[in-house]
């Protein structure tokens, strides 16, 4: 495999330093990991509450219900969004060969976004939540976040739009993802809050829950996969045709499924059937994407085992296949009757948000941080521990909650007293907290490793000077 296929003479290409604001990428990673830390602490608090071992039971600011919302919001807007923004500051300029619209705007967005996430957390802890799942951001922050998303779309959209000729796959996902994120946020945070109530609000709320994962996190996630995987494997994607099928299939079928989050509600039944059918249709599309990525990997002689970032990426892809297969099954009305409202759904959500997207982002951080700091990881073996504890912990947590959900569902359907569904959950909740602590430990180790690597890079820089 040759690495030197000159597309243009080196002198024609802009220098990396002029394209990528590396410091900002690093800042986004620091912010992302900080919010990951907060989110995991919040998860642990709620997990302990369920086991009736809440260490801070009577303090209003530590109300577990409020921290549960901090948990999900800090992951979605604090960790995942920050990590994506950091990665896009690396990927977009390098793919388009143009810097983002404005460096100072980039720094402004960075500060504004941290302000949005922090004030969301403060608002939630003050009891000011908005009654919309994954959109609990207090209503008075929503317009600010909306404006921030517009600036993000302009800042990254400008270099993408300036590209001449057909775009590379990553940029399809990014371009569409920037538009979708803006539209999704607007729809979810304003329509059911100010314009419609009841079942219609439920339909929009379901669409929001779904699109937030499907039209914000998923396209930005697959965008980075189509960028990093070919680079790490030093070979193109297996099939461009399948890339097309994957993108357009997702674009069409994903937004049609919102109502599958509220099956058996008073939302009209024919709409529920439609959501179920398009969920199953999307599973077919997902299979083509998985085939494409496995095809790309095929014949690389175990590169995925030796190369840690690549292993992160393909672990995420494997989890993605599992979650989507699970989606296609659990969205059927037969499954829903049993597993809706149970921890099955919680397990599924953790597999998507951590098993897939966080794993991809952590893998990309593992890959980029030494490149930006221009030194090896302080302890490469800690990176290995980070991988195994994250992947292993998540596997145990998701499997445990999915299984526990079945027992809860059966307990309810059997009309046993409510307490028995709680009692039957205790072993599963106990395993979950252990798995969660393992995942927490892994992230803390990663953060320490990051910090020590940074210190190492500083001493190297001083020594060189």
């Amino acid at each position, binding site marked *: 495999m040759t690495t030197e296929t000159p597309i243009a003479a080196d002198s024609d290409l802009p220098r990396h330093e002029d394209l990528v604001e590396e410091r900002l990428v690093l800042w986004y990673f620091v912010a992302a990991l900080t919010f990951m830390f907060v989110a995991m602490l919040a998860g642990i608090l709620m997990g302990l509450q369920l086991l009736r071992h809440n260490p801070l039971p009577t303090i209003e600011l530590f109300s577990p219900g409020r921290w549960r919302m901090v948990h999900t919001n800090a992951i979605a807007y604090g960790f995942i969004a920050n990590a994506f923004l950091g990665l896009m500051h690396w990927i977009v300029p390098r793919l388009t060969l143009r810097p983002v619209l404005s460096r100072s705007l980039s720094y402004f967005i960075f500060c504004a976004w941290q302000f949005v996430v922090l004030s969301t957390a403060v608002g939630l802890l003050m*009891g000011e*939540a908005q009654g919309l799942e994954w959109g609990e951001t207090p209503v008075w922050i929503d317009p600010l976040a909306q404006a921030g998303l517009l600036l993000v779309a302009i800042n990254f959209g400008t270099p993408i739009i300036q590209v001449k000729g057909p775009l590379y796959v990553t940029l399809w996902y990014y371009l569409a993802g920037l538009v979708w994120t803006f539209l999704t946020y607007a729809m979810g945070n304003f329509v059911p809050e100010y314009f*419609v109530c*009841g079942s219609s609000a439920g339909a929009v709320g379901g*669409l929001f829950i779904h699109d937030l994962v499907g039209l914000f996190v998923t396209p930005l996630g697959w965008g980075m996969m189509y960028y990093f995987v070919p680079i790490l494997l030093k070979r193109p994607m297996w099939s461009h045709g399948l890339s097309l099928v994957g993108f357009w299939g997702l674009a069409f079928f994903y937004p049609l499924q919102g109502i599958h989050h509220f099956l058996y509600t008073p939302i009209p039944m024919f709409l529920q059937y439609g959501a179920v059918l398009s969920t199953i249709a999307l599973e077919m599309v997902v299979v083509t994407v998985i085939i494409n990525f496995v095809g790309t990997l095929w014949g690389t002689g175990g590169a995925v085992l030796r190369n840690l970032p690549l292993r992160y990426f393909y672990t995420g892809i494997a989890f993605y296949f599992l979650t989507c297969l699970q989606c296609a099954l659990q969205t059927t009305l037969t499954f829903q009757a049993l597993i809706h409202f149970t921890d099955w*759904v919680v397990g599924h959500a953790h597999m998507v948000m951590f098993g897939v997207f966080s794993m991809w982002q952590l893998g990309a951080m593992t890959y980029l941080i030494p490149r930006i700091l221009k030194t090896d990881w302080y302890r490469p073996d800690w990176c290995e521990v980070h991988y195994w504890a994250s992947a292993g912990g998540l596997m145990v947590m998701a499997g445990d909650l999915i299984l526990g959900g079945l027992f809860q569902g059966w307990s309810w359907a059997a*009309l046993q007293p*409510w307490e028995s569904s709680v009692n039957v959950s205790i072993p599963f909740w106990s395993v979950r907290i252990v798995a969660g602590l393992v995942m927490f430990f892994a992230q803390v180790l990663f953060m320490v490793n990051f910090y020590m690597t940074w210190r190492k890079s500083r001493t190297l820089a001083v020594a060189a000077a």
Partner: protein
Amino acid sequence: MFEKKSGILLIAGVGFFAFAFLSNAVIPILMYRHLPEKTVLEVVNGNVRYQFEDLAQRYPDSFTAAYGEPPSDPEQAAEWYNAKCAEALELGRKVYIGEGCWHCHSQFVRPVSNEDRRWGPVSKSWEYQNRLQRPVMFGTRRVGPDLSREGGRRSNDWHAVHFYQPDMLSPKSPMPKYPWLFDGAPDKPNARGLALMTYVQWLGSWLESYPYYEDFQPTPIKTIAATEE
């Protein structure tokens, strides 16, 4: 078209999103256009008024501190109670959302899994066409039971103690304590505590089968509600 900026931006980005919004959101909105959204005052009914006045009798000091004294004229007092009850429902809903109650309690009864036998009538669309269901409080997880038919099933005293310290009444309950809804003791609910109790007692109060017990019998409270109208 498939790899061009215009195709991705306009067809995938805007077009497909708009198509999904039309088919998944605009259709139900149009279907329910004949069920106008009720205001909070309009959803105050005899059943929840009964519970609200019961709060005034059980916790007179807390109640007066939160809402003041009712006018002495009975007709004005009735209007006053309605207005204050609406106020309490609105604040109660805010507490319900702010404390994340809706992340462990759902508000809809499904036609499957024996839910109508456990909780009562399967949920209908008209029940949700009001200001207090904007955004709708369907919920997606049940650590605790569904609450959409909770109103009237338990007394205000029960709820006060339960919010103060859940495992006093439901042993081994994983529900958190909410002592900040009280001034130091379960018989001293503050404004937020009174409001949350009113809100919970409101849930399902609009139904024939209020309050819903597993062996449902028509309630005497219904007659009070009927005489008031």
